[in-house]
């Protein structure tokens, strides 16, 4: 009996049960039941994915489901990877969700939608026909959309606009994907992936290119690719935390999945310009995302933009893989692809942890603004520690989950210079520069997040009354933290799975990604053994500490801060997130175009005495301003102008008909 089939079946059953439980059970029971069932659902997904990664596969055809199309399901290693990631995230987020939802009230609707969303995340990678993929895709979009707006009572207008943006952008993406895939299916005379695979080589380059561009737009928008990212930093922060985690760590990945599935698998690679486009857009996305994150002071918004950055890096890797593949260097392609996929996994791990941590903070203080936080390390130590671990991963520093994957990505790019072609020579250095810049800015960003959010002293009453999160939330975070640590120290453990996925897509590639003992990660003559690095550092630290202890004659004592002998320190003196980011913002002034305004209220008596100085600064999403607003305004204006078409005059209405009839008759008369 096929384990994948069983696991998927169980997952479906669990999803149904969870929805039912959410609808019928009373609030308190409901939260627990849904949490447990969804956690099991995630586990089932994890198992199914794991089985596929271990070499299993599964295919099925359900003709009666989904009218006029029927459902085709098939799971291979690639699907398995994304399924496993999604399952793992669902598992952690569901456990966490028990505590969170109990606090948030756990409305019936939201609770019923959660398992649906989770299941759709497993369904998308399993789809094996255009219709199935689109149905699962749209199911995912609908459920997540409703979950995003489920918090509208608290959030008010921001939630509403987030929901509208998300709905429209995701549907834009859907239209693009639908057009592309349906075109592909029509051209290949088959609706199933197998048939398309068979028929794709016969397509005209125009059709292939067109299809690719369309799916790039569609899947790219889901993956937050600049300039189609606008929905992401709006929707992710506004959603309830477990939902944000699921969206940021699992849903966006599926954009990458779609691109790989269609571009590399169904279309079997393709022209070089496709992937150069992906690569360049990925680089842009990475840099733009991290820049916005670096100057953001809303914690969840910061994390959302960091998601944009990491997805940019992943797209960069995928693009590089495509370029190498198109140039016939399948080993390099395999390396780049493995790097991208590994980063997908690691990003999922640390981003889940970070979002859950941010949710715990929100849950404890009700504040998302880093400027209002601070001093949490004393009040919620566990959360702070776990968040710091996640931040280490996001900053791609040794000991962090992001480090090995970004290392692998750089390796593939560095070796890429072997590929001939002037474009490559021009593009690859820029790509490396983008990766490097985003890595550097990521360090600054997450030092800011941890330093101003959790360290120092509380800057608001809310932060002072903060308390540690309940057990279930901590449990969810700890699970993720374990995953982070594992990926950070033993990335090589993911080697076999990655190789299976990669060789499945690029048959030409040999064992480009090898893994040795103790999770050492090697790529074409370079090796990274994060375990040794971290262990060595820790050993050295301990030795030093021992030496110091011996050297110390008197025990350490505590004393008030010196602070240059300044009067007692108040929280207002601290550097806030905004002030921390100020130099960076100044450096990248031209890119970010921040809007700051300063109004000085002079004293009543004299204009020279200042009574109050109000300074406000906002860093709007510039792309959004420059690109979207004009479009929106044009459409609005068109709509207002169009009102004249229905101005109420019955004569005008009849006139339409009269004109049409006369025109028609004239045409007919002329046609004789």
């Amino acid at each position, binding site marked *: 009996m096929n384990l994948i089939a069983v696991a998927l079946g169980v997952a479906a059953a669990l999803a149904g049960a969870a929805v039912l439980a959410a609808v019928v059970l009373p609030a308190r029971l409901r939260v627990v039941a849904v949490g447990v069932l969804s956690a099991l659902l995630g586990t089932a997904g994890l198992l199914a994915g794991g089985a596929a990664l271990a070499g299993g596969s599964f295919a099925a055809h359900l003709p009666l489901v989904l009218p006029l199309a029927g459902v085709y399901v098939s799971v291979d290693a690639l699907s398995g990877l994304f399924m496993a990631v999604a399952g793992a995230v669902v598992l952690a987020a569901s456990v966490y969700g028990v505590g969170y939802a109990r606090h948030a009230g756990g409305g019936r609707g939201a609770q019923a939608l959660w398992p649906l969303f989770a299941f759709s995340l497993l369904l998308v990678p399993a789809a094996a026909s255009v219709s199935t993929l689109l149905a699962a895709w749209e199911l995912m979009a609908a459920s997540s959309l409703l979950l995003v707006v489920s918090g509208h009572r608290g959030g008010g207008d921001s939630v509403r606009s987030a929901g509208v943006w998300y709905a429209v952008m995701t549907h834009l993406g859907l239209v693009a994907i639908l057009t592309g895939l349906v075109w592909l299916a029509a051209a290949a005379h088959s609706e199933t992936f197998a048939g398309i695979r068979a028929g794709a080589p016969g397509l005209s380059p125009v059709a292939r290119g067109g299809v690719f561009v369309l799916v790039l737009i569609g899947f790219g928008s889901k993956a937050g690719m600049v300039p189609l990212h606008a929905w992401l930093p709006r929707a992710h922060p506004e959603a309830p935390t477990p939902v944000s985690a699921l969206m940021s760590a699992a849903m966006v990945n599926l954009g990458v999945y779609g691109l790989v599935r269609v571009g590399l698998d169904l279309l079997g690679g393709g022209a070089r310009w496709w992937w150069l486009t992906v690569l360049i857009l990925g680089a842009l996305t990475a840099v733009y995302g991290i820049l916005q994150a*670096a100057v953001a002071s809303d914690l969840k918004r910061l994390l959302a933009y960091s998601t944009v950055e990491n997805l940019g890096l992943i797209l960069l890797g995928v693009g590089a893989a495509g370029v190498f593949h198109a140039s016939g260097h399948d080993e390099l392609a395999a390396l780049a692809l493995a790097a991208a996929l590994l980063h997908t996994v690691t990003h999922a791990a640390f981003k889940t942890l970070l979002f859950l941590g941010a949710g715990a903070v929100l849950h404890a203080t009700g504040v998302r603004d880093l400027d209002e936080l*601070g001093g949490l390390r004393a009040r919620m130590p566990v959360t702070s520690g776990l968040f710091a671990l996640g931040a280490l991963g996001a*900053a791609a*520093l*040794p000991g962090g989950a992001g480090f090995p994957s970004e*290392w692998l990505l*750089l390796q593939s*790019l*560095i*070796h890429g*210079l072997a590929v001939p072609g002037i474009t490559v*020579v*021009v593009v690859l*250095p820029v790509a*490396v*520069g983008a990766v*490097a810049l985003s890595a*550097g*800015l990521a*360090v*600054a960003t997450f*030092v*800011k997040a941890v*330093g*101003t959010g959790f*360290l*120092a*002293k509380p800057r608001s009453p809310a932060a002072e009354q903060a308390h540690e999160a309940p057990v279930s939330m901590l449990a969810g975070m700890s699970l993720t933290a374990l995953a982070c640590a594992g990926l950070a120290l033993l990335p090589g453990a993911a080697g076999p799975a990655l190789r299976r996925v990669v060789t499945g897509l690029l048959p030409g590639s040999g064992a480009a990604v090898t893994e040795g003992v103790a999770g050492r990660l090697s790529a*074409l003559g*370079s*090796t*990274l*053994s*994060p375990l*040794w*690095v971290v262990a*060595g*550092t*820790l050993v*050295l*630290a301990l030795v*030093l*500490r021992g030496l*110091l202890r011996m*050297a110390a004659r*008197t*025990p*350490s*004592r*505590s*004393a*008030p*801060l*010196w602070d240059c002998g300044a009067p007692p*320190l108040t929280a207002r003196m*601290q*550097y806030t997130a905004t002030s*921390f980011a100020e*130099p*960076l913002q100044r450096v990248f002034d031209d890119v970010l175009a921040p809007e700051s305004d300063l109004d000085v209220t002079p004293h009543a008596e004299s204009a020279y005495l200042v009574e109050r100085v109000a300074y406000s600064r906002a860093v709007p999403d510039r792309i959004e301003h420059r690109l979207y607003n004009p479009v929106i305004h044009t459409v609005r204006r068109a709509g207002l102008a169009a009102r004249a078409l229905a101005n109420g005059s019955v004569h005008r209405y009849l006139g339409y008909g009269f004109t049409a009839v006369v025109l028609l008759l004239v045409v007919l008369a002329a046609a004789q």
Partner: protein
Amino acid sequence: MSADTVNTASILVSLGQVTLVLIGAPLLAGVMRQVRARLEGREGAGIWQPWRDLRKLLRKTRIVPEGTGPAFRTAPLLAVACTAMAAAAVPLISTRTGLGPGADLIAVVALLTLAAAALALAGLDTGTAFGGMGASREMTITALAEPTILMAVFALGARVGSTNLPQIVAAGVQHGGRLASPASLLAAFALGVVVLAETGRLPVDNPATHLELTMVHEAMVLEYAGPDLALVELGAAMRLTVLLGLWASLFAPWGIATATGPAALALGLGVLAGKLALLAVLLAAGEVFMAKLRLFRVPELLAGSFLLSVLAVTASFFLT
């Protein structure tokens, strides 16, 4: 590749490098201060002064400021440990270091960044205005220096087809002619600028000043005293040493041991000491005639070096 083999000898080499840097770093700092003093017409305190300072500081009682947390307490230790780990990985005396294949250039850079980040967090943890200011500025500079380093790595690694330090250095030793190529010259200059930035030297930062407007690194560590301060100072010196050493081994690898024989090692040690001393003197001399840049001019400098490293990459492709 011979560099891949890890054996007791190579591990000993690494340990040796660590201890060497631990001991030698303050000396290096001493040399620089002495040179500056002399050039400025002062007597100078002698090259051992840093060591005396450290000894003094280490004897003092360890003071934990109120309201600071684990970040503040562990940061100095972590910084030193990271730098030491880097020292173990970078081929200073010999290309046969303990991490062997794991001695990756990117890893080394990451380690040094980690050290900087730890101190920045410590600065923020104090909750003082100065701590935050220092952290913010330090992180800005690091963030901007990172690309340059990695581009330089790209330029050097692309040629060898690996970012493994021993391999790069060994390649440099084998065909020294390459070192004269425009690529490596440009990379050398770019990396040099970054080294200055990363180690908080002029014109980016002035280690000798405590003037609040200009402080970067010093502002971060203002709250440290006693043994912790000693660690911080030591860490800074080690950072300088390791980076200079790295620079030397990358662009002037001559004399570095490619084996683990005692003679070779001794030679390597001597040559290294010479190179470092020379670099230190040059650096100190340079600083005498240089003024600190305004903080917001620093990015221009770094941008310039980034440009150079990009040129280095393209050059390494076109001109070889």
